[in-house]
């Protein structure tokens, strides 16, 4: 798990995962899109609390390795100001067969979105800006809090 303030280059990152035992490689790239919830987005700013983002990301990858028989997994998340079309997050997974690589990649990106201490501020075409409140993440935290109380 790595946090970077320079451009994510998936072609370079996939080279971290090569190995003769791998029969499948699955990657996910999250990109900055030009609209969110009806608003035209100009750019995005990611704030990351790196010490815990790295720790929590490593934990997620370790969980994926226990849950699925994969060979390797890596994840890189951007911080700072990003323009439309830039890659915000990359996940790459290798395994012997494709099923576990697809499943583990999905698991990692889903957990990264709801568990990493990362926040994004959208800057809109109309000059406004605002922190994105991830509703699904909030629901995830509520469920966890409820189950902890139970």
């Amino acid at each position, binding site marked *: 798990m790595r946090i970077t303030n320079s451009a994510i280059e998936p072609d370079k990152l996939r080279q971290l995962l090569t190995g003769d035992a791998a029969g499948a490689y699955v990657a996910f790239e999250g990109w900055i899109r030009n609209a969110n919830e009806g608003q035209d987005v100009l750019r995005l700013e990611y704030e990351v609390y790196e010490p815990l983002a790295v720790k929590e990301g490593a934990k997620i990858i370790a969980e994926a390795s226990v849950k699925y028989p994969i060979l390797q997994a890596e994840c890189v998340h951007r911080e700072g100001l990003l323009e439309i079309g830039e890659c915000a997050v990359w996940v790459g997974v290798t395994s012997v067969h494709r099923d576990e690589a697809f499943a583990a990649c999905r698991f990692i990106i889903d957990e990264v979105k709801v568990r990493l201490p990362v*926040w994004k501020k959208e800057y809109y075409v109309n000059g406004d800006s605002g922190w994105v*409140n991830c509703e699904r993440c909030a629901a995830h935290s509520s469920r966890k809090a409820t189950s902890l109380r139970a």
Partner: protein
Amino acid sequence: MNKNITVRYFAGFREHAGVGEETVSLPAATAGDVYELLKDRHGSQEPLGHCKVAINDEMADWSAEVFDGDTVLLFPPVAGG
């Protein structure tokens, strides 16, 4: 009894508080108490369960006990990816 707690605010919480970090004296037993007692500072209307907390750089539950000298990190709802 009050405890000296160093509180760190992130993203929208920091913008509302106007500072990234401050040390406060609070009658707090748990991390959840810190969040509730500092509502005017972070300005969040979010239920506790929507936010996250860390104590001394370890993710924690809101029910975790806080001690004099702890650093409590208050995280607004996250939105990575």
